[in-house]
């Protein structure tokens, strides 16, 4: 099974959780995901996620000059985003527990 299919559902929640910690930007999000063990997440995967979150008003962005000069988009979570993240966490726990019980049954372990 392709990793990207598996990731699709959870990536939005993870990105939202990173943005919820503090104001951040694309490059930093990629780094955070990489540190967390998501190795194949590049800008190509991240940007559509950020666009979707922005369109759904779960995050908002402001533009400011980066230390290197170019304009950078800084993302912050909205109130709607915080509610959505809480909801996502609950749903993820439930689904993860169910999936684990199926995938790692005592017999297999």
């Amino acid at each position, binding site marked *: 099974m392709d990793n990207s299919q598996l990731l699709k559902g959870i990536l939005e929640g993870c990105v939202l959780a990173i943005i919820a910690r503090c104001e951040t930007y694309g490059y930093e999000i990629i780094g955070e995901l990489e540190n967390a063990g998501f190795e194949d997440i*590049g800008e*190509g995967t991240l940007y*559509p996620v950020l666009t979707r979150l922005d369109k759904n008003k779960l995050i908002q962005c402001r*533009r400011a000059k*980066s230390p*290197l000069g*170019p304009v950078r*988009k800084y993302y912050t979570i909205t109130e709607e985003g915080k509610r959505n993240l809480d909801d996502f966490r609950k749903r993820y726990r439930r689904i993860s527990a169910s999936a684990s019980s199926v995938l790692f049954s005592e017999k297999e372990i």
Partner: protein
Amino acid sequence: MNYSIMEQQLNGEYRDAFTAVITYGTLKNYSDEIMTERIAELFDTLLTAQTNGKPVGKIIGHNTERFCREFFEDCSNWDMTVKFLQSLFYMSCITFVLVLLLYLTDRGSAEGARYNLTPCIIGAAIYFIFSAVSNLIIVPLMFKSQKIKPAVWHRISLIVFFVIFITALILGSQTRSWIYIPESAYLICSGAYIAVYFIIRSVIRYRKNGSILKAPEDTIYIQNNREFNDKKYDAIVMKTWKKRYDVQYAKGKTDPGKFIEKLKKNNSTSRKMNILTGIAVISVYGVSVFRFASDGNITATIIFSLICGVICYKIWKFFIGALSSAQTQNDRLISECESSGLPFPEFAEKILKIYFSFTISRYAGSKRSLRICKAIKLN
């Protein structure tokens, strides 16, 4: 948005990746709005990665085609339709002005002016053929070919466009024109399209940005590019002046004071030439309007003079604008040199060092930074 200035700030594999995405987006015909937003975001990420020495693979992965597809994944067909409507708007504006001029010139002709629709059909055919060739041939080949760089594919696509354009023109000129419509009908239809497009665009912009003008962030991108360009311009000018100074000083023909005076004189002569060019353009404009007015129709003369005025202004701005901005920058450099109290050679070194540290902070440790050091002869 000027992508080439952004490209210049990236090097090696970062630049290749950036060019591949631009070429992909351009050939896929995504709207300016989408391209501006995404390319700016990608540029920031790649520039930061380049400065931090993070491999490009960590940003775009190892499959550029997949990256491009994912990067523009959420762009619907509607975005491409918007781009088509945008292109149609610009084409309509140009043809509207040209046909209006023809209409004004042909007024009073016995048969009544008629407009040949063939060029419009040829234009649409070029658009669709080029889109098909780009999508079905150039883009897949670009990703398949490992040896040819994306920048080369960009140029190939331009050549293909011109080949299609010239072929269409030749075929069009050899085909007997078959669709004629009255110029007034063409003017009404294209004028209506321009008006509707303009109103819808203004409403969308107003709802999105609170103004019917371009979004303010667009100007931020321009400012950033200008800052980079200004520093680069200063360095190029200083390098040229320093070279000239060294040659003349070695021959004993100049000293720092004399050299600055000569630069001032050259710049002032160049400004006088601008005025002469301006007078020439205004004279041509005046003569054309006068000849047109001699026919006696006041309304037509007013419209004609307005259109010609805008065209002359645009031509003047295109040729003289760049020259004048260079002269202003030269004046600034000369006055900075005088106010610094430094002799010219030392001031030139100082400017080159400023550019050097600005550039080195962006390309730290890269081959490009060494190339720049070598180019401006600094260690």
